[in-house]
């Protein structure tokens, strides 16, 4: 049944529905509703909530609980996610499944508490030290945030990898009607024969990321990247009104919704514009973007982000010089508007020869 959910609370309840019974948090705006909600709910479902002494401790608690076989989660916002990077690197190296939520705020440094998308590089390119990646989901609304959080636990177990939910302060704080997926029975969750849960005298299980032999470590890193290659099939994106488009807008998360409004109003003015919305940021929907850019009708691919330009680098790699790839971003916690994006659509359309953009407004 649909109910009115705040984004942060929907993420928390979806995690519990997915079988998460260990949550480790630390206060930081704008994600505080997640630890607050978990502190209430974990007791009711027989789980464990710890308000850790720091984000550093919280991610290492996730490493311990996930390494011992539990479905574990932590949440934070940008500066706190920076603190977790050491632990995330260890978790990726030791192949511990877990879910990490980042409700992004503006940076760098302490920055501000308003929405931002400036942790894209950190989320998709590694963030911590060493060769690794993780599956990164970018929900654009409360229902999708709940659905992707629920799914993230299954994918984390499947690939034995951390999975990140990359939202922003807007998503965390907004209220929308949403339905939480059905609660999982813990007994139905996949078995974890690799987990360090106490072996009863049988074969030892070790959770670690240290390999002193370069050959062994190289083989381990290659295995991780084989898993990332396998993960390619999780690539997800949404295409909106792209079939006849002369201008393709690429935007993710909450910004994609604002961009969708701009696409609709531009269409009302006769401009043939469509939207590609990456749902996974890693793996990135490069092929979908490349295929769109390839079309003769497409004149340019416009990336819109709440940053100084991060995802645009992946868009440019995907387009690979086939078409112009302009960028429009707001930063510092400022949120863009449909009007701003519409103006960008029209200006770039005119500049790069989209006939529908050059025509007089209806």
């Amino acid at each position, binding site marked *: 049944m649909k109910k009115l959910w705040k984004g942060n609370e929907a993420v928390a309840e979806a995690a519990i529905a997915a079988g998460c*019974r*260990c949550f*480790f948090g630390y206060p930081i705006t704008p994600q505080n509703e997640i630890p607050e909600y978990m502190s209430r709910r974990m007791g009711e479902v027989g789980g*464990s909530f*710890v308000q*850790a*002494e*720091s984000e*550093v*401790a*919280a991610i*290492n*608690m*996730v*490493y*311990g*609980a*996930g*390494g*011992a*076989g*539990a479905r*574990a989660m932590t949440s934070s916002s940008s500066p706190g996610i920076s603190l977790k990077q*050491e*632990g995330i690197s*260890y978790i990726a190296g*030791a192949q511990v499944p877990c879910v990490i939520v980042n409700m992004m705020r503006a940076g760098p440094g302490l920055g501000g508490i308003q929405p931002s998308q400036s942790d894209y590089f950190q989320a998709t390119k590694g963030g911590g030290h060493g060769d690794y990646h993780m599956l990164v989901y970018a929900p654009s609304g409360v229902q999708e945030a709940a659905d992707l959080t629920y799914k993230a636990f299954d994918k984390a177990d499947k690939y034995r990898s951390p999975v990140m939910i990359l939202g922003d302060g807007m998503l965390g704080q907004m209220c929308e009607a949403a339905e939480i997926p059905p609660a999982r029975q813990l007994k139905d969750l996949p078995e974890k024969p690799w*987990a*360090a*849960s*106490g*072996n*009863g*005298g049988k074969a*030892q*299980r*070790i*959770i*670690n*990321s*240290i390999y002193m032999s370069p050959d062994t470590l190289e083989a381990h890193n290659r295995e991780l990247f084989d898993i990332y290659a396998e993960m390619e099939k999780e690539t997800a994106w949404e295409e909106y009104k792209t079939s006849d488009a002369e201008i393709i807008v690429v935007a993710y998360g909450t910004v994609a919704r604002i961009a969708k409004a701009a696409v609709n109003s531009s269409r009302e003015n006769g401009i043939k514009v469509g939207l590609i919305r990456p749902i996974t940021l890693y793996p990135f929907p490069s092929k979908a973007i490349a295929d769109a850019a390839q079309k003769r009708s497409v004149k340019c691919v416009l990336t819109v982000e709440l940053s100084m330009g991060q995802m645009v680098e992946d868009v440019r790699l995907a387009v690979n010089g086939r078409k112009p790839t302009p960028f429009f971003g707001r930063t510092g916690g400022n949120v863009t508007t449909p009007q701003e994006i519409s103006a960008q659509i029209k200006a770039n359309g005119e500049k790069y020869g989209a006939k529908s953009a050059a025509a007089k407004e209806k």
Partner: protein
Amino acid sequence: MAEYKKPEMLTDTPFHYCPGCTHGIVHRLIAEAAEEVGASKDAIGIAPVGCAVFAYNYFKCDMLQAAHGRAPAVATGVRRARPDNLIFVYQGDGDLASIGMAETVHAATRGENITVIFINNGIYGMTGGQMAPTTMAGQKTTTSQSGRDVKTHGNPIKICELLATLDGPCYIARTSMHDVKHIRETKAAIVKAFKKQQEKKGFSLIEILSTCPTNFHLSPKASLDYIRDTAVNFYPLGVFKEI
């Protein structure tokens, strides 16, 4: 007559530790203590960063290797996932008392039901003998080459005294490895801590004064004598808290 044999909980892998280092003996004591309380097979250990980083090669139980200083946080996570297993955390002085101080103090004050085995030899062993948070005044290390001067290097930390002020711990004790009598006392302290953990009494920590002959630049015997004659004077042995 008692039969002398290797504890079941230890593997056949030879210890990689330097001659005269007391890590190997402490590993054995942990294994003997875990067997004595009947929990060796389902024990879960947390290995630190430092010379004992490969501790999982010597124990047969499941183990997790933690980032530098984070072992008590990792153990907290394991405890929340596994309420009933015996959990031991193995840490050195740099790991526990410097980079991991926040995790140490907060696991202790939460009363997290885990046992921390704290190896205090007053020096960073694996990285080559640098000054530790527990290096004593006057002690020479590679980063206090004329001896620790508390005016410039600051003072060493007494962990047992500090943790004993908290409400969470059920057992805080300092022992030494410098002779057979004290090794036996160390084992008795570990057994006591494990039993308290089984009774779910909360956080326990045994600080064990240990040697590092390689970085002390002393022979194994002279290292033990150094603990007996010098370290125990600054780090008094005994039970600092017991509930």
